[in-house]
């Protein structure tokens, strides 16, 4: 059955008969575009905030125009100095960090970093941080003057600052308050980045949705720590730190799966994604897009490889990315043993 590449995603997803796994790929060209809160991304792969600087740092290593989007390092209304060293430590299949949101501040971001990002085909998502609701609003108001930002990602989940950040992300009432205020201020779609350091992430997800969030990014890092037993001192000056990397992937994936069933707004999944298969898992679990984080540090071409990997997979499966999203098939207990592998 013919499918048209530029067909609206919704229409395509209503035609499951168009895809037959047993057919050779032939000339089927999948659409890997996705739409999040009215913004189209050329593919569902973004780089995660805090792992990709302001994009330009990678310009000579990879073709940034092949990315779906770039989430820039968390920006606050005023510059922040960050935490004392040591700030990072590698653990088994992961890394701890407590950077403390060191950043140049919203004004300098607009002047020095945004002009470059504006030239790219990749979308620019600006991660916004504050200590108080007023800080978040003030930061957004400054950023509203910028030309070339496609969405905001509200960081209510940073585990490494004394107030703000995760304090908001752990409390549904505070989440609603800061999301509602930010939504009122924002002239662009508002994503809310959730913390996994909660008992039930769907409670916070619904709180953000109810307060007007246009999309949810999950998850930020898990609070962890490491100790040098020789000196009996913490490995990181902040004592506790955020754990990222492949170690957290299964937990992040579970949270995306749960949240996708609890809210209607799109989800951007992240947490330890380092391969095409990781990214596909998140999409199948219900994420509309994914972010690659820690892998950027050791393999800057990871995101580009994942874009191509998703395209190849979709071609082979004769699926558009939109059909993949949330397509997890869970056998029900009363059905006999599955016959297809």
């Amino acid at each position, binding site marked *: 059955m013919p499918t048209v590449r530029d067909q609206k995603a919704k229409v395509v997803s209503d035609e499951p008969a168009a895809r037959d796994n047993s057919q050779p790929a032939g000339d089927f060209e999948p659409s890997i575009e996705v739409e999040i809160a009215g913004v189209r991304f050329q593919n569902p792969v973004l780089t995660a905030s805090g792992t990709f600087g302001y994009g330009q740092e990678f310009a000579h290593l990879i073709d940034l125009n092949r990315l779906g989007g770039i989430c820039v390092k968390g920006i606050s209304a005023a510059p922040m100095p960050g935490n004392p060293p*040591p700030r*990072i430590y*590698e653990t088994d299949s992961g890394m701890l*960090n407590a950077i403390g949101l060191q950043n140049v501040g919203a004004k300098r971001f607009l002047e020095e970093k945004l002009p470059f990002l504006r030239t790219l085909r990749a979308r620019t998502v600006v991660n916004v941080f504050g200590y108080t609701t007023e800080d978040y609003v003030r930061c957004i108001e400054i950023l509203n003057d910028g030309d070339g930002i496609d969405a905001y990602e509200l960081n209510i989940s940073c585990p490494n600052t004394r107030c703000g950040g995760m304090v908001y992300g752990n409390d549904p009432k505070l989440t609603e308050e800061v999301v509602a205020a930010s939504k009122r201020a924002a002239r662009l779609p508002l994503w809310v980045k959730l913390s996994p350091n909660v008992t039930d992430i769907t409670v916070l997800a619904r709180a953000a949705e109810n307060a007007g969030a246009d999309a949810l990014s999950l998850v930020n890092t898990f609070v962890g720590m490491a100790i040098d037993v020789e000196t009996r001192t913490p490995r990181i000056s902040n004592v506790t730190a955020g754990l990222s990397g492949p170690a957290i992937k299964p937990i992040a994936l579970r949270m995306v799966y749960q949240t996708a069933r609890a809210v209607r707004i799109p989800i951007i999944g992240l947490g330890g994604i380092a391969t095409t298969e990781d990214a596909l898992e998140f999409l199948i679990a219900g994420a509309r897009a994914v972010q690659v984080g820690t892998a950027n*540090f*050791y*393999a800057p071409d990871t995101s580009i490889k994942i874009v191509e990997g998703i395209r190849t997979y979709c071609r082979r499966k004769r699926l558009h990315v939109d059909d993949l999203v949330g397509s997890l098939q869970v056998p029900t207990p009363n059905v006999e043993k599955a016959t297809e592998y």
Partner: protein
Amino acid sequence: MDDQVVAVIENKPLGSSYGLLSLDAARQAQAARPGQFAMVRILGTGGVLLRRPMSIYDVKPDAAPHSGPRLIQLLYKVVGRGTRLMAGLKPGDPVALLAPLGHGFFVEDYLEQAEQADEVLHVAGGIGIAALLMAARELAEKGFKQRLFFGGRSRGDLVGAVDFRPYLRQIVVVTEDGSCGCRGYVTGPLEDHLARYPDRRFLLLACGPWAMLQATAELAGRYGHRLLVSMENRMGCGLGVCLGCCIRVEGEGHGAYQRVCTEGPVFWADKVVWERGTLPIT
């Protein structure tokens, strides 16, 4: 700077816990300047996640008589999982090499300072020696007089000293256990030298543990000489984006955190804020 998968040419053990890794990386070798570093990722093992920052010890032409540098050499000490895996590398093994990185011994007015000095003094602690060889050669080619003060825990920690011989007038070795040279810390004979020649002007270049750099900075300040330090820290990316390697450096207002990988690794020592509470644990 390039990110390339390159092959191991040779991995030569130096005593029980050091090694010299030679990588076939012509483009990166030709671009490397004194004091720069590389981020090394060992492929094909599930052992470690992040790349490891390593000083570029030297660049070498290959056997063929033709051209410029082709090999990048990394002098390493086995201290943890990453360097243990590095010690196990065999010729032909692939390594992902991001290099050359950082602001090495070519900060503003560095050569000017060297020209005004009567002598350039290198101060190395253990594996910190790896950051200094290319600088010593470059300065020797420009005709500067140089001396090396080299300290280690024990005789086995004084690797690489022989490579400096052609470029220096003297190498002073010091060990904490007295197994080679005089006993004590490297700053002992360094201070003797500074005190013996109060009228001479020195430029100091140092690389080693934080405490040694701090003590050297204190001496340089006390005797009124300029000191460039090559700083070490844990690094996540080497590209300036993770902000994991920042140290406090005097700057705007009360000070600012600067990235060892990007603004450094070489800093003027009088700009570094040597706070005890912020020791990088390496």
